[in-house]
């Protein structure tokens, strides 16, 4: 049963920095989407914005958790299963918020207007996350499946419009999928975690650049 990420000690500083960066980028995207909602009251923008803000909070929690653990553990590797209650709560909060964030984005892509259905999926996912014996692998597997659904949406958008901006967003989400597939193996070796963070960095930078290009055209 694996409830641990293995993070090389030399990477602690970097992962903290990257966690903050991911949190900021996703927050910017989320706020921007809400700004677009305020301007246009387009429902999809609001849901998309909420999804990204949840992911942002999730990264923030992951970062705070890493900082706390970094200050506590002075060994070559970190075992999350040894953490105190707050750390466990933090870890669950990170996972749950991330999954709800992804689910919210998928909810936006389907165009379905059913809060009952949306809340049902959230409850089912939270229960399965909490009670699954292989919590970490399950979380990463679940994230990967959700990313597949998001990618399917962006693939359709790209095929329909054939525009570079759609292709870059598609690539960003494909890279994020690869990140979470890679993280399934991070329970066995620290290098997987490092690779995942680097791929995530590329993905979020692509999303950020896309956003900057949009706002500069204004």
């Amino acid at each position, binding site marked *: 049963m694996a409830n641990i990420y293995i993070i090389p000690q030399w990477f602690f500083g970097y992962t903290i920095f990257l966690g903050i960066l991911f949190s900021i980028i996703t927050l910017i995207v989320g706020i*921007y*989407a809400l700004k*677009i909602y305020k*301007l*246009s*009251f*387009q429902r*999809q*923008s609001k849901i*998309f914005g909420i999804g990204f803000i949840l992911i942002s909070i999730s990264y923030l929690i992951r970062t705070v958790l890493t900082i706390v653990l970094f200050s506590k553990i002075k060994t070559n590797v970190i075992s999350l299963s040894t953490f105190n209650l707050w750390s466990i709560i933090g870890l669950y909060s990170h996972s749950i918020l991330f999954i709800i964030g992804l689910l919210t984005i998928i909810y*936006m*892509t389907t165009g379905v207007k059913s809060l009952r259905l949306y809340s049902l999926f959230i409850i089912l996912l939270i229960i399965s996350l909490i009670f699954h014996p292989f919590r970490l692998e399950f979380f990463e597997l679940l994230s990967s499946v959700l990313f597949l659904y998001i990618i399917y*949406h*962006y693939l359709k*958008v790209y095929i*329909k*419009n054939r*525009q570079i*901006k*759609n292709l870059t*967003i598609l690539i960003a989400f494909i890279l994020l999928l690869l990140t979470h597939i890679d993280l399934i193996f991070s329970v066995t070796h620290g290098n997987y975690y490092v690779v995942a963070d680097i791929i995530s960095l590329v993905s979020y930078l692509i999303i950020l650049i*896309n956003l900057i290009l*949009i*706002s500069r*055209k*204004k």
Partner: protein
Amino acid sequence: MNKKRDRLQVIHDILKAIQDKNGKIKPTHILYKSNLSHQMMEEYLNELIEGGFVIENQTPSGKTYSLTEKGFDYLKQYKLITDFVESFGLS
């Protein structure tokens, strides 16, 4: 052109029609400019009034519509809105 793009475009056309008439447009003009059915136009106008983009005015000669600040903002930021919506597949 996808469905949401159409919706954003229709809203743009309605607001632009009101702006072009200096805020004294009658429903018949909106109907003509927006190329919608009467029912659809009513739905859009109600939505725009509820959203705070348009104000309905009662005059002796009938109803007229004018833009609010939010309505003007929409027209100003229309390119930004559509770029964002298209890029992030929010349709």
